[in-house]
């Protein structure tokens, strides 16, 4: 069920996001792409389809609304997940729970 997932992780702390990206890509069947600014995240969202968008460190509640609007406006098949903990033991759980919930 989790196989071949394409995940976009947006966060504004490069050191933490390096870890998040590495963890996402260490998971079999997951392809993680990292964006380090809101603009980069919006651009990547509009260029390719992602199964999920992970909102990570530094992304404010206002930025989250911006991403929601972009996904709705472009009718993107992307679910939004707020990732807490910075590449912690919650990461895989958050993705799996969001996908389970979607189904």
């Amino acid at each position, binding site marked *: 069920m989790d196989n071949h997932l394409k995940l976009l992780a947006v966060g504004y*702390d490069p*050191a*933490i996001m390096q*870890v998040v990206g590495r963890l996402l890509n260490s998971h079999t069947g997951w392809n993680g792409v990292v964006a380090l600014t809101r603009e980069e995240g919006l651009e990547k969202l509009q260029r390719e389809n992602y199964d999920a968008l992970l909102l*990570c*460190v*530094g*992304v*404010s*509640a206002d930025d989250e609304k911006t991403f929601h609007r972009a996904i709705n406006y472009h009718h993107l098949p992307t679910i939004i997940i707020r990732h*807490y*903990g*910075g*590449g*912690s*033991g*919650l990461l*895989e*759980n958050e993705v*799996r*729970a969001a996908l*389970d919930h979607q189904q």
Partner: protein
Amino acid sequence: MAQYILHKADTRGHDHHDWLDSRKTFSFGDYYNPRRMGFGALRVLNDDTLPGGKGFGLHPHDNMEIISIPLKGSLRHEDSAGNKAIAAAGTIQVMHAGSGLFHSEYNNSSDEIAEFLQIWLYPEDLNTPPLYTLGELPHHEGSNQLYTFIGPDNPNGISVRKDVWFGIGYFDYGVSFAYPVHQPGNGVYAFVIDGRFSVDGKELSARDGLGIWESDSIEVKALSDSARLLIMEVPMIINPQ
């Protein structure tokens, strides 16, 4: 009417590595159970044992309140904000990860095990400055009192989100008390560290947990001597801004 969810100790997730033995009440790491994703703002309750000299190497966190309660031995903490500390049994360590930091936690002893509870809460606000605090946790056998060590009035200088209350205490057989829920809408998670308790008439043994919500008072009774209970009162709605 009060609602309950019981998590027996032997139903927790279990990871065993040469550097860590961890029992997880809620989904964490390789343990995933969609019905165990936390209890309100309480997201992680790990019961961890580190062999001598072992621990968690440098790794990042953000936007979580990470509370460590050493039960045996001590932890050696270092973080990217420059904090270095030893958290021993009888203390409590709180790391407000906020906008992000890296830290490591090792067993401070090279040959004795360290046991601690690792508790994570969702934050009230996103991306606030990180903060580390280490406080005393002066609860003693025979005291028969619940000691509030986290609360809005900041007991012992411990700084956590303002709408949670944590209490801990040792109780002798037969001692009972009513725990009043401080904030309407909050839930209470009772976790037995040692011994046995009755909580609202439900019998709990060591490392069992009981979540209670839609209640304004909880009845607690110790069913063994030197029984130790941790009570965590948390908001049931998660919506950090």
